[in-house]
């Protein structure tokens, strides 16, 4: 009997160690100690969430399982369940810059998956993460608009992620390329340092215009004179369709850039 008890203990301990080892190498593994719940100033309440969503203001990420997401989610939310994180991360990363503010949510109540997701994203350099703790439950109960079906890659009519002047500088320092949507004459008269000119309605192959130095995941910063939403959206769709996933939009445009005294260049394509 003593031997049986001893063996039973071993049968409990050895697999536990196997589980710990597996968790360490499993891409879908979880932290040994759950990450702490969000600080008060990191929590978004219902009113704020309604504002954020209706203005398409921030990137919203749904941490629930794909199945739950498909059955209803907050409009425009990116689907990123914990157990599929590794596969989805590349796409997410191409779409959302590390310095952008993100809102994560899960079902609500005491749900933990958004906390774990935030922990994983933090590990990849996303520092500004907010938590909508009311979650999908609160959103649905309040009768807010719900979107159904699986996540679709933002190839068409995707919300363009906006960047401001500060982020422009940060991203350009990290190797992002500015893309000037204005006509060639305005471009030659002055454009953002290092920009490539792809005028609205450009008939050639944008990949050729971008050249060899631009990779499919290079961040591209589209701008026009100012607030050229339609032109930027159109080009972003074209770029995404040929595999360039890093399109962003700088609504301030050349006007704001020049007025702020940022570095400009003149002349034709370099």
């Amino acid at each position, binding site marked *: 009997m003593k031997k*049986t008890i001893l063996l039973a203990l071993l049968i*409990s301990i050895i*697999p536990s160690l*196997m*589980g710990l080892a597996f968790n360490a190498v499993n891409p*879908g593994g*979880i932290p040994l100690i759950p990450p702490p719940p969000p600080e008060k100033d990191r929590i978004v309440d219902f009113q704020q969430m309604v504002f954020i969503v209706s203005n398409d203001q921030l990137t919203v990420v749904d941490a629930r399982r794909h199945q739950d997401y498909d059955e209803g989610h907050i409009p425009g939310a990116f689907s990123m369940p914990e157990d599929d994180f590794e596969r989805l991360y590349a796409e997410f990363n191409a779409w959302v810059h590390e310095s952008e503010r993100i809102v994560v949510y899960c079902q609500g109540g005491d749900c933990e998956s958004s906390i774990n997701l935030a922990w994983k994203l933090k590990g990849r350099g996303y520092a500004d993460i907010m938590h909508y703790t009311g979650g999908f439950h609160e959103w649905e109960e309040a009768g807010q608009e719900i979107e159904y079906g699986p996540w679709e890659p933002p190839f068409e009519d995707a919300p363009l992620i906006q960047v401001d002047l500060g982020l422009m500088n940060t991203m350009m320092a990290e190797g992002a390329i500015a893309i000037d949507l204005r006509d060639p004459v305005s471009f030659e008269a002055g454009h953002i340092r290092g920009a490539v000119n792809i005028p609205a309605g450009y008939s050639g192959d944008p990949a050729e215009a971008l050249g060899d130095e631009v990779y499919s995941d290079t961040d591209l910063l589209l701008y026009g004179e100012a607030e050229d939403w339609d032109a930027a959206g159109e080009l972003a769709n074209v770029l995404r369709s040929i595999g360039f996933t890093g399109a962003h939009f700088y609504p301030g445009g050349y006007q704001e850039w020049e007025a702020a005294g940022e570095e400009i260049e003149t002349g034709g394509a370099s």
Partner: protein
Amino acid sequence: VKALKVLEILSGLAVGGIFIYAAWSKILDPGEFSGLIGAYKLFPRWSLNLIAITLPWVEMVAGVMMVTGIFRRPASLAVLALCVGFLFSLGWAMHHGYDISCGCFGGETEHKVGWSDIIRDLLLIAGCLFCLFAPKKRRALV
């Protein structure tokens, strides 16, 4: 004795098989399992992930041992201990009237914890006890 031996092997197959099945989805999605354990409000938050990481592996290995007959007796004892623990947890959840899913087989079952879970657990306990106290044979197991 032969009939008892057959019964022992059958109990091992049944209990072990159920445990292997139960362990599988939990191993695949430890994050979800952690949430399911948390819903019982029985363990402190810091321990939830550790349980979710290790418990399914104990279930899996002990289940395989019960099915194959390698160290069936000690494996039955380990499974018995787990089942008693589950019984307590289920009772706790029902006593407090928590509207939570059992989590017995990971996340795919939607129904709330109830008597069916208790009865299944009692059957598992009976199977374990049988394997544990079935008469010993002196020769090595197949």
